């Protein structure tokens, strides 16, 4: 086991493309850290640099207290699980597990003991004499895990290891990996684009975008206190509704939040966590409301406590329903915050409501808003402190 430290690490390809920009990140000994982000954000590159499969253009990479920039993958004592498993197709499961042990020159007796131990942990004992093509996707995934754990490495690296599995198997193996890591206590770095994997598996999650680390925090902190609009929009499904607004103080001293031509009364106590809010009154801002912040309004709601919308479409999921409504104001997508063009409809407000048979498409609806769940950002997409 070992800690891992990225110290001002850069990755610049010969064509000038910067895949990683000034990555600073410390991973504790025994921690399960997940890199998450959209395609091309640099998460896999960071992992491959840690594996020794990509050169480091600048900065230092430490495993334990060793600088490993110039070390081969073998010298780094890491093990990796690849997205397509990369099992050796001509070898049996036993031979696949044995290969890394032969490379470190263990005696045949030690090798067989290690293989038996790994097979026991992962339920592979019955499959040892089969070849990869005779295994199901889930079994192949387990063999790939087995090949990683059999060496007892200092760090496990996993590059989207569940992306080739169906939803049910993914959920099952997700739990198995988390349990295995917990049992073995080996430092693990896991890459995924799936935020559910990131949130459920990681002790901490590093959100990446355009080669830069956006936020490093526990899953709950990412959800509760996103550092910027990108993280706010990326974490949580369906994504947070983010829209331009202004926070104004009325003559009576009440706080009002503009939502297009509608407004919401804000209880100052509900947003007391924003200590610098006074500086942003009457200034252009971005506001965020998660779909969970909405509920169906009572028959006679207090004034300025709900939004009047028209339901465009709905997805009934049994225990709850997702409402897609015409928003009173243009929405901002996380992709826009990342500087990318978004082709999503930006005038849709998404709400997650308790199942309700009285809600139908193309009908008006009053949505009550829990303003204690309001997020505020500056117009340059950073969270207000």
């Amino acid at each position, binding site marked *: 086991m070992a800690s891992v430290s990225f110290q001002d690490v850069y990755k610049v390809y010969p064509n000038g493309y910067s895949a990683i920009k000034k990555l600073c990140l410390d991973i504790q000994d025994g921690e399960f850290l997940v890199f998450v982000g959209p395609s091309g954000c640099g998460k896999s590159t960071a992992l491959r640099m840690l594996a020794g*499969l990509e050169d480091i253009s600048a900065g230092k990479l430490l495993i334990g207290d060793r600088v490993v920039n110039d070390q081969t993958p073998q010298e780094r004592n*890491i093990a990796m699980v690849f997205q397509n498993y990369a099992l050796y197709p001509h070898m049996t499961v036993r031979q696949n597990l044995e*290969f890394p042990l032969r490379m470190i020159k263990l005696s045949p007796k030690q090798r067989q003991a290690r293989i038996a131990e790994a097979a026991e942990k992962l339920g592979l004992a019955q499959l040892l004499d089969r070849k990869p093509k005779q295994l199901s996707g889930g079994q192949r995934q387990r063999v790939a895990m087995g090949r990683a754990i059999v060496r007892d490495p200092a760090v496990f690296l996993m590059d989207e290891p569940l992306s080739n599995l169906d939803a049910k198997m993914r959920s099952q193996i997700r739990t198995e990996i988390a349990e295995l890591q917990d049992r073995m206590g080996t430092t693990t770095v896991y890459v995924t684009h799936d935020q559910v994997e990131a949130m459920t598996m990681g002790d901490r999650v590093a959100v990446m975008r355009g080669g830069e680390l956006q936020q490093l925090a526990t899953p709950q902190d990412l959800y509760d206190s996103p550092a910027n609009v990108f993280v706010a929009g990326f974490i949580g499904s369906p994504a947070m509704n983010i829209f331009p607004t202004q926070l104004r103080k009325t003559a009576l001293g009440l706080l009002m939040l503009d939502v297009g031509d509608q407004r919401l009364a804000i209880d100052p106590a509900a947003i007391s966590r924003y200590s610098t809010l006074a500086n942003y009154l009457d200034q252009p801002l971005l506001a965020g409301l998660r779909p969970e912040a909405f509920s169906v309004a009572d028959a006679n709601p207090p004034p300025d406590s709900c939004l009047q919308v028209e339901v465009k479409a709905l997805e009934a999921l049994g225990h709850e329903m997702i409402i897609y409504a015409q928003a009173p104001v243009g929405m901002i997508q996380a992709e826009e915050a990342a500087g990318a063009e978004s082709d999503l409809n930006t005038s849709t407000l998404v709400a997650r409501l308790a199942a309700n048979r009285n809600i139908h498409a193309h009908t008006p609806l009053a949505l009550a808003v829990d303003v204690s769940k309001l997020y505020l950002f500056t117009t340059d997409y950073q969270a207000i402190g």
Partner: protein
Amino acid sequence: MQDSNIQLNRTDHSQSEPVIIRQRRKWLGAIASYLLLTVLALLFVAPIVFMIIGSLKPDSLVLTEAGTFKAFLPGQISFQNYRDVFERVDFARFFFNSLFITSMIVLAGLLVNSLAGYAFARLRWRGRSGVLLLVIALMIIPFEAIAVPLFFQVTLLGWRNTYIAQILPFVANAFSIYLFYTFFIDLPKELEEAARVDGASTLRTFFEIIVPVAKPVFATVAILTFLTQWGSFLWPLMVTLDEQVRPLPVAISSFQTLPPIQWGDIMSFGVMMVAPILIVFLLFQKWFVEGVASTGTKG
């Protein structure tokens, strides 16, 4: 009511006609294509059948029946021609020479060309694309164009009338390198990366991971090289002086220059020369087809 019935019947009748015509056309098309394929197959097989039948006939009948249909009928079977070959020349010597030269070219070629193909496909080195382009360009240069300069080179080195003169110039082969290159470039990189992470060196990765996965392309290159080299005639004729190092194709030509010309003997020599090729092809046929499919090579 009656009118509409009549209308309906007419419509049914007009719809059923094209179906029959279509079916008939389909059958005719199938018959025509099978006929064409059969004729082509007969054309390709005829010389081989002629050679095998001719080798079993008394020498006098081979030429006299050559222009008739009887050339393809065994008649009275005799192995005299085969006995004659062994009496007239040292067939075993020629056979050994051919087998040794071809096997050495195939084995050394597999090693050298696969490593070269791998270096082009996977290793990053200065000038790689330029050299690859050169290798591809070399494929279009016919051997005859370089035969004379090569002959001078071999003479200068004192290699005339040796095995090495017949082996070394043919080990590295641009076409084989290209075949290996196209196969390796399509292999998933993760296999090699997994081996690197597991602690294998580049060479060990190549021999323990890549070679077993690349069996089809190895078989393809082996067969293609074997076929080309087994029938090689011009170069051995240029660099060999006596029977000690001469391969089969040069030996068979001596039957046509040494009187009396015995066509039966030539046929039986031909049969014994072609047999190993057929055996090699049949042994590796499955891999060969796989290899051709995976490398996108034709023939």
